[in-house]
């Protein structure tokens, strides 16, 4: 029997992991943890002591999920005490996904600093944690005309300064450092492909859900989505098996942009894939169709990952690319992103 916390438990993915885990026989207890309540202003990081140990519970509209608010950035001690008090043995971290575009400087805080503090909390005396599953992102792989189409876990990762990819890569570094420093903790880093689900959309899925779909003129990239249920499956599998190491996660298959549009019966709105940078938010605000700057390279050259390593460890995707696309059209999929 395992006692589990899901950090980022209020995110669509975190919530789904908690929901699914509650019905599993090997789970004794599962709770969600957030540094602050969703929708509330950011927790005042300068006075963590005032809130230390204090927990708040909030019943969400759809399914009641218990979320404990534990401000652990930048001082990890409240979380360390929380983990010890609740006798937690497994931490699943879902705070890095799904959509961190537009976060700007906050991405660094959410990814790098939070992962660093989480690692510190797990390493505190009294912590019983022996398994840490980090939901990372396939965005760490290089993207561009010179890159391979399909990436496996052994590939060198992109570290262009200031990018979301570099921020995630740095967060992974802290998880790996913890794995090295705490040999009794199995650290699994799951690199998730772009999410698609009823309540959650990564940037790519958000673009595909529009009609007409802004499309790259003169390009037909190979893309890959990850169904929310497959993502939750993989995280639960990694926690259950106490996996260690890096694993890619995507739903089965690869689909090309033109095929995706045909399958969804969407019209394409061809746009020059230029990456107009600073003007993009302005144009988007004016209601003009744009290709999001962070997707331009993906929409020109395509990107996919090889998931066979996790399949060898016993996980199987239950959805293929077509069912990911269907999930975007499902009723109730109105709210994009987190």
């Amino acid at each position, binding site marked *: 029997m395992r006692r589990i916390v899901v950090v980022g438990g209020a995110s669509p993915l975190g919530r789904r992991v908690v929901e699914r885990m509650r019905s599993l026989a090997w789970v004794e207890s599962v709770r969600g943890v957030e540094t602050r309540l969703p929708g509330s202003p950011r927790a005042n990081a300068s006075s963590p002591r005032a809130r230390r140990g204090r927990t708040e519970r909030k019943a969400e509209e759809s399914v009641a999920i218990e979320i404990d608010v534990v401000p652990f950035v930048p001082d990890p001690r409240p979380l360390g005490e929380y983990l010890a008090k609740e006798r937690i043995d497994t931490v699943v971290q879902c705070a890095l996904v799904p959509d961190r575009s537009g976060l700007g400087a906050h991405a660094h805080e959410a990814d790098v600093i939070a992962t660093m503090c989480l690692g510190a909390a797990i390493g505190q005396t009294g912590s019983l944690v022996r398994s840490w599953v980090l939901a990372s992102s396939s965005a760490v792989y290089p993207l561009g005309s010179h890159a391979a189409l399909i990436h496996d876990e052994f590939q060198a990762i992109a570290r262009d300064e200031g990018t979301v990819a570099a921020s995630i890569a740095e967060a992974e570094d802290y998880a790996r450092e913890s794995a090295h420093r705490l040999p009794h903790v199995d650290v699994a880093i799951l690199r998730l492909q772009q999410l698609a689900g009823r309540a959650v959309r990564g940037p790519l899925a958000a673009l595909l859900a529009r009609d007409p779909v802004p499309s790259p003129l*003169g390009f037909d990239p190979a893309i890959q989505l990850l169904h929310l249920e497959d993502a939750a499956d993989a995280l639960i599998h990694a926690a259950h098996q106490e996996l260690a190491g890096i694993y890619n996660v995507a739903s089965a*298959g690869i689909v*090309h942009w033109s095929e995706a549009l045909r399958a969804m019966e969407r019209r394409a709105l061809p746009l020059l894939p230029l990456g107009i940078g600073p003007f993009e938010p302005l144009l988007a605000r004016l209601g003009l169709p744009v290709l999001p700057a962070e997707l331009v390279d993906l929409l020109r050259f395509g990107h996919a990952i090889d998931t066979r390593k996790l399949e060898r460890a016993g996980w199987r995707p239950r959805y293929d690319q077509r069912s990911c696309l269907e999930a975007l059209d499902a009723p109730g999929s109105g709210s994009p992103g987190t």
Partner: protein
Amino acid sequence: MNEAIDRWGRAPLDPYRDGFFAKACRSWFRVEWEGLEHLPREGGALLVSNHAGMMPIDGGVIQYGIESRAQRLVYLLAHHGFFRVPFVGRMMNRTGTVVAHPDNAHRLLREDGHLVLVFPEGAKGPVKPPSERYRLQRFGRGGFVETALRAGVPIVPIVLMGTEDTTPTLEVLELAGQRYPLTLNTLLFGPILGALAHFPAKIRVRVLPAVGFDEPAEQPGYSRSLLMDRAEAIRGDMQAALDEMLAARKSRWLG
């Protein structure tokens, strides 16, 4: 989902080569093949060929020839820069050309078991001076041998004669640090039409016996001397076959 386009972006029916290009191969260049029996009937193999001409057609000649005669798909590897150009990259993907990346080549050869064509000379082939006509340039750094070893597939050398006479190079020009071949076609027909118009030289293609390896596949690395050694041996065999074909040729137009 993927019944229409495979994961490399290739469409099953290829309108570009079943139409005009196929006719050009038959009637304009009168392509003749020998040694097709050296091609493996199944499983991956790395095809290597000599590369020359202003707008190289050699890849298309080999791809169309093997696909129509041996009923096996041939994928081409090309410099990634082509794939940055809108429409061009997409058309190349559709017709079975993939970015030349070692990982792409490995998956095509080992996972998909396809025939994959590379030009180890790279850009040095098309931009060589006229004095180097039908002389094979350095075969890169032997990377193609490493690709074949890693994938555990044989190398099949293919020699083309005639392609260098379809666009004869007169001089190599240097503009802003880049080298460009000035061809007779460009001089006569201008830069755009000259890049497309090819003289009707007779093209002969010879497939040489496959070169197999004893080294185990999927090793993290292979000895550099082994790679360069094998690369040079293959280049030597290809140059010898090309010299033999040139000696037997009576006319560059009639073969």
